[in-house]
């Protein structure tokens, strides 16, 4: 069976699933952000695959480039928030950052 669209979609689905597991199970805030990056990469693989195999043209690649830009912005702000949480709580365990709960 020649490599075609479904192969890439399967890779994207596995990236998404593993990223979802990372986001749900990690207690380390940096680990959660890594999971988000994995999810975005799974979406990007799908965009590039559909662009190459279904629509032709460059639209999918442009979407993927915007996703990369927003992922970089998200990582910068997210990690800044993690640093702020660490300065406040002296830990980055997301379960202990519960100041607003009480």
């Amino acid at each position, binding site marked *: 069976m020649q490599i075609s669209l479904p192969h890439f979609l399967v890779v994207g689905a596995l990236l*998404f699933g593993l990223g979802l597991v990372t986001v749900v199970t990690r207690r380390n805030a940096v680990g959660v952000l890594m999971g988000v990056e994995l999810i975005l990469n799974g979406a990007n693989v799908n965009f590039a695959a559909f662009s*190459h195999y279904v629509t032709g043209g460059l639209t999918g690649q442009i979407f993927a480039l915007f996703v990369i830009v927003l992922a970089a912005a998200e990582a910068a702000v997210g990690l800044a928030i993690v640093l702020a949480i660490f300065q406040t709580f002296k830990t980055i365990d997301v379960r202990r950052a519960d100041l607003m709960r009480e």
Partner: protein
Amino acid sequence: MNLTPGKILGWLAGAALVAAFLVGMAQLAIGPAAGAWSATAAGPLGVRDVLFYVLAALTVAGAGGVAFARNILHSAIGLLMALLGAGALYVLLSADFLAVTQLLVYIGGVLVLVLFAVMLTSRIGEVNVSNASVGVVGGLLLLAAVAPVLVAVALLTPWRLIAPGPAVATTAALGDAFLTRWLLPFEVASMVLLATLVGAIVIARKEIKAD
């Protein structure tokens, strides 16, 4: 530096990934001139197929490392593998500019940022507190619930495929598209980046009491 089997395996996997990425780039560079690639693709298992399976395996293995590694630094190395593999897959999809952007922005930028955050926030020596995860069983159940559905959709849907054209350099066409049809999103993205720059500095800096 003591070499455990895991470390040796990791180095071998990394070397194989870099080699596969270089081969993929070379394939794109010599693209249309090399009839050998399309000739082998007609066989039962061409070079492109082998490349895809190697890269996909390393990508998914890296993602698995991110999800299940016990040390946060090993998670970061797994993220590196996953991002490199995804970038090489873009080359197979003849998205060369996307692959280079992945390399520059994700691996050169985001991954370094993540490593800085790891170094600044966690006590690296304490492996058990640094990357504890809860509910691994629940996470695996979630994976078992989500992944098969997506994989089934990918495999069972009758996609209307087009014949992929020859691999051409996309950079000039992407630049044209960004400055004509996608001009407004492009400018909005630049504003988002500016806001991110200011916001990240304001959030992360230490408060200096002026008294």
